[in-house]
């Protein structure tokens, strides 16, 4: 039964990686922008939640609820005043700018919050578990996975059934024609990045409750997010969840064999998927 247990833990861990990745996937799907500062923004959001928790004495869940609109504003402003200026046919400028942002964020956070490891404490919930008969699962990992499913479900609903989602798809297809329909692509992009930062806040909440974080761990979260997005197929949100689950399962199986293999096993799974399906598991028909 231990392997079944490992499988379930791996899938639940995949929920966290899917949360890391969903914002990245959304932004890439709409504006073909790869945000290299995505991981650092997750850490930034975690510090924002920590700050609110410490200042107002709130539970991290409530603090995240307050941090989400703030992060939306951060994402909106980042897109509106920085990233929109570098978006264009050439993919290099946005990569350079977000790389620079990543370095600046890490050093800024180091300056303000120091290199000390931090954690969002939720007391008994951290070790609570639920017995499902054959396996016992942690309440927090289960909550993480459920939140990932809910977030991706909601994002998909927004994307495919609302006027905002229609605008997202139209500007993604053809920004010039979308502007002829009265849409301002730059405003639509700003809303998309704001929305991605709300998902980032959710990811930050579970990152901070699950393990320690410090200003330097952003790039590794970005790497997991990237792998989940690419395994799933660029721009497919449910694919991103599947991608997260695959990385999660590979990592837990690797760790089960030898704890040193955890991270490596995730990377190997990523390479294997790329070898077999270079465009990912669920590539979008129109790219």
């Amino acid at each position, binding site marked *: 039964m231990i392997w079944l247990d490992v499988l379930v833990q791996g899938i639940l861990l995949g929920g966290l990686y899917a949360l890391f990745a969903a914002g990245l996937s959304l932004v890439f799907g709409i504006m073909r922008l790869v945000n290299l500062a995505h991981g650092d923004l997750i850490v930034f959001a975690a510090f924002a939640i920590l700050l609110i928790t410490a200042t107002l004495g709130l539970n991290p869940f409530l603090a995240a609820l307050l941090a989400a609109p703030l992060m939306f504003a951060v994402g909106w402003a980042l897109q509106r005043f920085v990233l929109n200026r570098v978006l264009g046919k050439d993919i290099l400028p946005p990569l350079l700018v977000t790389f620079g942002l990543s370095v600046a964020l890490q050093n800024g956070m180091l300056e303000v919050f120091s290199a000390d490891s931090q954690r969002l404490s939720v007391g008994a919930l951290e070790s609570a578990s639920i017995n499902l008969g054959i396996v016992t699962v942690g309440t927090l990992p289960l909550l993480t996975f459920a939140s990932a499913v809910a977030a991706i479900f909601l994002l998909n609903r927004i994307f495919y059934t609302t*006027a905002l989602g229609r605008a997202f*798809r139209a500007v993604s297809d053809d920004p010039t024609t979308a502007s002829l329909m009265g849409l301002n692509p730059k405003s639509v992009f700003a809303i998309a990045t704001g929305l991605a930062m709300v998902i980032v806040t959710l990811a930050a909440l579970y990152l901070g409750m699950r393990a320690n974080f410090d200003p330097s761990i952003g790039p590794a979260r970005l790497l997991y997010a990237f792998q989940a997005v690419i395994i799933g197929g660029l721009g497919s949100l449910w694919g991103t969840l599947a991608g997260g689950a695959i990385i999660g399962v590979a990592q837990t199986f690797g760790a089960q064999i030898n704890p040193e293999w955890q991270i490596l096993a995730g990377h190997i799974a990523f390479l294997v998927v790329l070898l077999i399906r270079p465009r990912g598991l669920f590539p979008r028909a129109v790219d």
Partner: protein
Amino acid sequence: MAFLSTHGLTAQYGQFKALFGVDLHVNPGECVAIIGANGAGKTTLMRSITGVLRNAPEMIRLGDTPIGALPADQILKRGIAMVPEGRKLFPSLSVEENLLIGGQVRKGSGRWSLDEIYGLFPILKERRHSPGTALSGGQQQMVAIGRALMSNPELLLCDEISLGLAPVVIRDIYAALPAIRATGAAVIVVEQDITRALSVADRVYCMMEGRVTLTAPAKEVTREAIHAAYFGAAA
């Protein structure tokens, strides 16, 4: 007063100058045809009017108001909608979503609604859940026209709406024009099919190499005058 007018309108792509001082106007409710060979500057003119290409503010006026420097989304909000050359439907959107996105920014409570568009082009109702780009060329053109109408425009720009379509399909599409004009909207029709253009328009402009070479009421213009304006040759 003219609904829309251009004054010495110029446009260029990098070093290449595409328009050299174009003056034209459209009166409220009027149908104006713009004809000319490939490369005459017709599409550049449409792109300038709709704000895809930015100009000096004074070069384009809506009534008295200079609008030349406004971006495309602001131009639409002022009642000017475009059916772009090549239809340009959004591939990720269904027929109905393509229509709805055209109406996302509506000017006033005009006539056009989804039902009105389906009344004008009944086939679109049957295909409303198909991806826009899965339709035939003629049906796609109907979606593109419907999408532009959904914003209840006071001026509709139709750029080469017959391009690449069979004559019988072109006839069906042009059959919708009277219903559109009945709402009081002005229409600019950019056409290479001169006979078709003259049959629907009140006035005609002919362009050649970025300049207007002829302006005349459609009913009075002679074949020789058009020949001279179109090809630059002596009639």
